[in-house]
C-alpha cells in the first residue's frame, strides 16, 4: 500500500491477456464456466419456466427445454392492467435513486475520506448504525411522515424512501474506493490551478468508477426490486412499481400463476442486465481515464 503513485498507470494491463497466458488458462476457464453455470442456472430455470405452459411447470421428471413452449405467459404480462404504468414508475424511481444516490454518496465519501473535521467520525459511525436497523421495522413510522408531507402515492415519496436506505450503503462502500485513490493525483491537478472541488470531480470521480459501478449496480437493483415499501407507499394501482405489480399473478390461497410471475421476472431482469453491460467495462478499466493525467 505504500506504492501509491505509480499503481495507477499500469492497471489497464490485465484486460488484454498476453498470448502466452492462453494455454495456462484451461483451469481458470473451466472454473469460470462452472461459476457461470451455477450462478445462472436458477435464472435459466426462470426463463425456461416463463416459456412453459402452466401444466409443464412442475413435473416429476424435469424437462430442460420448453417443449411444447408458449409465449402465452408474456402475452399475459403485456396485457395485464397497469403493466406499462408499472414499467414507467419503476424506471423513473430507479433512475432517480441511482443518479441521486451516486452523486450524493460520492460527495459524502470524498468528504469523509479526504478531510478531517468535527463531526466526521460521528457521521461515519451513524452511517454504519443506520444500516443495522431492520428496514421493515421502520415502515409504519416512515409511512406516517410521508403521509404528513402528502407524499403517499408519489414518485418523490418512494424515491426519497429508497434514497434513505441506499445512501448509507453507497457512502459506506464508496468511502473505501475513494480512500484507495492516491491523493497526490488531486494535488497534482491543483498545482495546475484547479480548485479542490474541481479536482474531485475531474480526477477522483473517474478514478472511483469501479466503485461507482459496483455501488451503482447495487442501488439500481435495490430500487428496482424493492417490494414492501413500494407496496405500502404506492397503494393505488396506477402507482404500482413492477415488483408489486408482479404480485397480481399471486392469488394467495388461490394459487399463483407461476408462468406469469416468471415471464414478468424475466422481463424485469432485462433492464438490470442491460444496465450492467453498459457499465461493466468500467469495473476493469475505470482507472484508465485518470491514468493519463497521473
Amino acid at each position, binding site marked *: *500500500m505504500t506504492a501509491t503513485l505509480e*499503481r495507477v498507470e*499500469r*492497471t489497464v494491463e490485465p484486460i488484454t491477456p498476453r498470448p502466452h497466458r492462453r494455454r495456462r*488458462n484451461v483451469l*481458470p*476457464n473451466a472454473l*469460470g*464456466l462452472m*461459476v*457461470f453455470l451455477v*450462478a*445462472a442456472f*436458477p*435464472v435459466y*430455470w*426462470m426463463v425456461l419456466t416463463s416459456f412453459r405452459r402452466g401444466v409443464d411447470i*412442475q413435473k416429476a421428471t*424435469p424437462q430442460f427445454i420448453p417443449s411444447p413452449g408458449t409465449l402465452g405467459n408474456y402475452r399475459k404480462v403485456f396485457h395485464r392492467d397497469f403493466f406499462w404504468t408499472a414499467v414507467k414508475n419503476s424506471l423513473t424511481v430507479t433512475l432517480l435513486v441511482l443518479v441521486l444516490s451516486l452523486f450524493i454518496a460520492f*460527495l*459524502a465519501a*470524498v468528504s469523509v475520506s*479526504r*478531510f478531517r*473535521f468535527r463531526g466526521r467520525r460521528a*457521521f461515519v*459511525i451513524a452511517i*454504519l448504525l443506520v444500516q*443495522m*436497523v431492520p428496514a*421493515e*421495522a*421502520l415502515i409504519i413510522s416512515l409511512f406516517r411522515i410521508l403521509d404528513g408531507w402528502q407524499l403517499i402515492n408519489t414518485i418523490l415519496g418512494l424515491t*426519497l*424512501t429508497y*434514497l*434513505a436506505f441506499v*445512501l*448509507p450503503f453507497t457512502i459506506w462502500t464508496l*468511502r*473505501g*474506493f475513494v*480512500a484507495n485513490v492516491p*491523493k*497526490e493525483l488531486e*494535488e497534482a491537478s491543483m498545482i495546475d490551478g484547479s480548485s*479542490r472541488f474541481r479536482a474531485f470531480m475531474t480526477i477522483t470521480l473517474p478514478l472511483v468508477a*469501479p466503485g461507482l459501478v459496483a455501488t451503482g*449496480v*447495487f442501488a439500481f437493483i435495490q430500487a428496482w426490486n424493492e*417490494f414492501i415499501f413500494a407496496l405500502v407507499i404506492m397503494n393505488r394501482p396506477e402507482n404500482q412499481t413492477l*415488483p408489486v405489480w408482479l404480485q397480481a399473478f399471486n392469488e394467495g390461497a388461490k394459487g399463483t400463476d*407461476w408462468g406469469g*410471475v416468471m415471464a414478468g*421476472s424475466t422481463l*424485469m431482469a432485462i433492464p*438490470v442486465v442491460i444496465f*450492467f*453491460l453498459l457499465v*461493466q467495462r468500467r469495473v476493469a478499466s475505470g482507472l484508465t481515464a485518470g491514468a493519463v493525467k497521473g
Partner: protein
Amino acid sequence: MENSPIMEHVDGITPRHRRVRPLPYVLLAPAVVALGLMLGYPIVRLFTLALQEFGLKQQFGAAAKWVGFDNFRAILRDAEFWSVLRRTLLFCAVNVALTMVLGMAIALLLQRLGSKMRLLTMLGLMLAWSMPALTSTVIWQWIFDTQYGIANWALGRQGQSWLSNPLTFYFVATIIVVWMGIPFVAFTLYAGLTQIPEEMMEAAAIDGARPWQRFRDIVVPALKPILLILTSLSVLWDFRVFTQVYVLQRAGGITRDTNLLGVYAYRISIGANQFDKGAAVAVVMVMITVLMTVFYLRSMTRQEEL
C-alpha cells in the same frame, strides 16, 4: 491502517488549511439532509415504540401507554427468542464466511480470466444478482421441492423432504443466501483488485513469493478496507435474512424450528400487530449487530482510519 499516506496528507497539506473549512460540510450536506429527513424520525420513533404499548389500536389513534422495559422483558424471557438468536448467529457466521471466501475466490478467478470468459462469468453473476429475491427463492425452492424438484430427481431420492429437517432446511437456505450474496462481493472485490498495481504483484513474483504469499502479503492488505466493509455489510444482511427463510417456511418444514431473527421479528410486528414488541426485537437486533461489529469499529477508530 498505519500505512495510509492519504490520511496523513489530509490535514497536512498546508497549515493554513487547519482553520474550519466549509468544503467537507458542504460535500456532506446533501447526505445528511436526505438521511436526517427520512430516517431521523422513524429511528427515534423505533426506540420510543419499544418503550410503549403499541399495537393496531394505537396505530389507529388510541393513546400509547409508556411501559418502560416491559417489551424487552417479554422478549428476553421468551425461550424461543434465545433459540432463534442462537440459530441466527450461527447461520449468519456460516453464511458470511462462505460468501466472503467464495466471493474472494471468484474475484481472483475473474482477474485470471480472459476478457470474454470474464464477461461471461460476470454476466452469470449479474443474472443471479438481478433476480428479485422472491423469484429466486421460489426457483430454488422448486429445485429442492419434495416431489417435483430436480435436486431429488438428480439424486434419485424423490419424495424426501429437504425442508422438514432443520439442518437440511438451513442447508437450502444457505445455498440461496450465499448464491444471492456472492455477486456483489465478487464484483466489489474484483473492482478492488484492479486497483492494485500490477508492478507490486510482479515484483513479488520476481522475489520468489508464492501465489499464496502474494495473496496474503499484498492482496489482503491492499483490499483490507474493502474486505472489512464487505464483511460488515454481509454480517448486517445475513443477520436479518427474511425473504428466503419466509418463503421456504411456507413451502415446508416446521416454522417454530426454523425461525431466524428477521422472520421472527416480522411475525411478531406485522404478523401479530405487536409493533411495540417488534420494535423491541429490532432494537435488540441493532444492539447485537453493534456488539458484533464493535471489534471492527474499535480497530477503525484506533487506527485512525475512521
